[in-house]
């Protein structure tokens, strides 16, 4: 196409000040320029204020205070910590506690949410309405009220350690926390872990090769059973063969409280339970909407092709429902992580309560502490959402 006709652009207009505003492009440039200047001015003004305020208060700015002794105790820690440790270590304890409650919450809320969502779709009127009432009630009450309510019930209604509710002589429910047996690994236990890892690798390798085989020859392999056998069966077998190298430390009542075992403090329990119950109600609605979004014709077509019910569910309905479910589910997971910051209301020492609470009050470094907390939450949020986005992209419909 080398035809060069004399297509002329719009006639060149002579420059004038008034045109800057009437031409769309130059107007855009002017607006952006003004916006840049305004933003720079505001940032400079704020920065100037910060510098002046710091000078006036005679405070240095810096993060060296993190190396000082913290002088406070934390009642539940995942790593070794005492009041002699540094503020930085307290912050790490806080981060781990946040992550602990977020991960536990995400798992429990997902399980409960999926169950509730399916119940909500049940043709059984009673079950359906019960799930509806639960979801509506829980969703419309602030999560902080849930946390305080559960905490109040756990602390005030459960018995003292002496009258602990005893489940099978090894689990004890008290108002000082839940005491469960603690696993203690004996030397040979590494063999079991190794077996588990090997089983896991083999299972995924097997699944992959089975898929390739099916694509090439159409033959199907018993993938599910082989995966089950290698992931669970193999470690169990090794565990029995090596003479069960895992001891359980059972908690015992000594004096006024239980000793030994693993203690789940009431603060952690109430935060975990409340966050999970609350978020489960939201997840249930997401799951229901996702399943309802799959066209009924899809099920009918799958059945008409002769797929059995279970395969219809696995191969047709769930993959399509997940595509609708994942994005809002992602934001619920982020919400759990962010809502775990309410821990401070009941004294669970998460990152807000350690670095943004006691450390801040002890050292008076508001600016630095808040910057750390904000930065960490941004990091968590971006990490979770990028993982979920990656997963979402894998599931997304490949269009033309």
């Amino acid at each position: 196409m080398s035809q060069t006709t004399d297509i002329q652009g719009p006639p060149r207009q002579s420059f004038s000040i008034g045109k800057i505003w009437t031409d769309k492009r130059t107007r855009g440039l002017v607006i952006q320029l003004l916006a840049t200047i305004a933003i720079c001015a505001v940032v400079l003004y704020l920065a100037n204020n910060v510098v002046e305020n710091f000078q006036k208060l005679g405070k240095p700015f810096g993060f060296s205070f993190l190396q000082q002794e913290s002088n406070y105790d934390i009642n539940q820690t995942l790593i070794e910590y005492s009041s002699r440790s540094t503020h930085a270590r307290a912050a790490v304890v806080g981060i781990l506690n946040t992550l602990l409650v977020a991960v536990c919450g995400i798992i429990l809320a997902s399980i409960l949410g999926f169950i509730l969502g399916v119940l909500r779709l049940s043709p059984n009127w009673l079950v359906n309405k019960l799930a509806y009432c639960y979801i509506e009630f829980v969703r419309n009450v602030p999560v902080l009220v849930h946390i305080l309510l559960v905490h109040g019930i756990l602390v005030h209604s459960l018995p003292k350690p002496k009258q602990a509710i005893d489940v099978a002589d090894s689990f004890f429910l008290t108002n000082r926390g839940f005491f469960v047996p603690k696993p203690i690994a004996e030397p040979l236990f590494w063999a079991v872990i190794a077996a588990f890892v090997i089983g896991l690798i083999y299972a995924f390798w097997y699944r992959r090769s089975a898929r390739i085989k099916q694509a090439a020859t159409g033959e199907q392999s018993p993938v599910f059973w082989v995966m089950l056998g290698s992931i669970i069966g193999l470690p169990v077998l090794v565990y029995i063969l090596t003479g069960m190298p895992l001891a359980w430390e059972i908690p015992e009542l000594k004096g006024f409280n239980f000793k030994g075992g693993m203690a789940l403090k009431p603060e952690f329990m109430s935060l975990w339970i409340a966050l999970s119950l609350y978020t489960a109600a939201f997840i249930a609605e997401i799951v229901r909407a996702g399943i309802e979004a799959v066209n009924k014709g899809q099920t009918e077509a799958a059945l008409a092709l002769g797929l059995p019910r279970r395969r219809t569910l696995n191969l047709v309905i769930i993959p399509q429902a997940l595509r609708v479910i994942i994005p809002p589910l992602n934001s619920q997971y982020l919400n759990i992580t962010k809502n775990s910051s309410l821990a401070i209301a009941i004294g669970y020492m998460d990152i807000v309560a350690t670095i943004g609470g006691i450390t801040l009050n002890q050292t008076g470094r508001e600016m630095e502490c808040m910057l750390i907390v904000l930065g960490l939450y941004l990091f968590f949020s971006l990490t979770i959402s990028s993982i979920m986005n990656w997963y979402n992209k894998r599931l997304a419909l490949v269009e033309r």
Partner: protein
Amino acid sequence: MSTSTSPYAPGEHPDEKPPIGQSGLVNWVYTNLFSSPFNIILTLVTAYFLYKILPPMFNWMFFDAVYVADSREHCRELNSGACWGFIGKRIGQFTYGFYPHELRWRVNLTFLLFIVAVLPVLWDNMPKRRLMLWFSALFPFIGFWLLSGGLGLETVETNKWGGFMLTMVIGVTGIAVSLPLGILLALGRQSDLHIIRWVCTGFIEFIRGVPLITLLFVASTMLNYFLPPGSNFDLLLRVLIMVVLFSAAYLAEVVRGGLQAIPKGQVEAADAMGLKYWQSMRLVVLPQALKISIPGIVNTFIGLFKDSTLVVIIGLLDPLGIGRASLSDTKWQGLSTEVYVFIALFFFICCFGMSRYSIYLEKKLHTGHSEE
């Protein structure tokens, strides 16, 4: 199938009753509760569960409850259920916080005026709606004047505000201010101007990435650093700013969803008709975009209303703050369940009402053009 043998002319056949068992109560019970063995088991298990849970709950809440009492001991002497007498004794504080007793009429009056102001906004067939909307526009100023005083009224410091009144103040202000701000942010994020878009995107992502409680901490501890030395302004105002920014960022994302759902042809058509940017947004794009994002917008409002409870953590006396303060009274210790159930009921009624209204609004605005 030929119908020529029918003794009735086409369309003249009288309606017959469905066979017994295909309709009515029996059929309903059968299809909804006992249609299959699995369903029967499910029904029985659920019924047993309800039988175990409901009677104790109702007994605790109503039948064994004590409605008038002087202390927790007194409650326990009278009956074994909930001790609502505690709530009754403190209901004034739960509603008004520490607002001076003799000035509470001002809060009541503001609440009445609020209802008058909000009616024309929610109910569009109202007689004299135009006139009433003017009042709605003026209400924020009248309400602020009535609550805080000045100009002839005795001033009441905001640290005396509390209880449900504080929740309403935060909720209503937040909702009213964050919606326009959220729309602006959403438009900014969709803008062709790079710098505007980057600033809006950065702001939205930052706010959405951190929990509200950290922003409230920023408001209560760090904000003073950003102001000229020596200046200090009201804590409630700082909190309100943070709440508004927080929910504006969430609203912006909801509205953006609505904006993205509007076909590009709409904007192009508006351009072709010679509408300027703001005209095309105001007259063409936003009415459609806002309509589809109503459920999300109301959900954000509900979230904001619920999140107003977080102010208790930085020391404002919302209902939870009043509740905690009352629980430290030795006469009433250990009644946390009553307090929190009471507060939960308040929030449930407000938020459930809002979500019902949104469903009504959706139905009303549904013009049959969406892809259903």
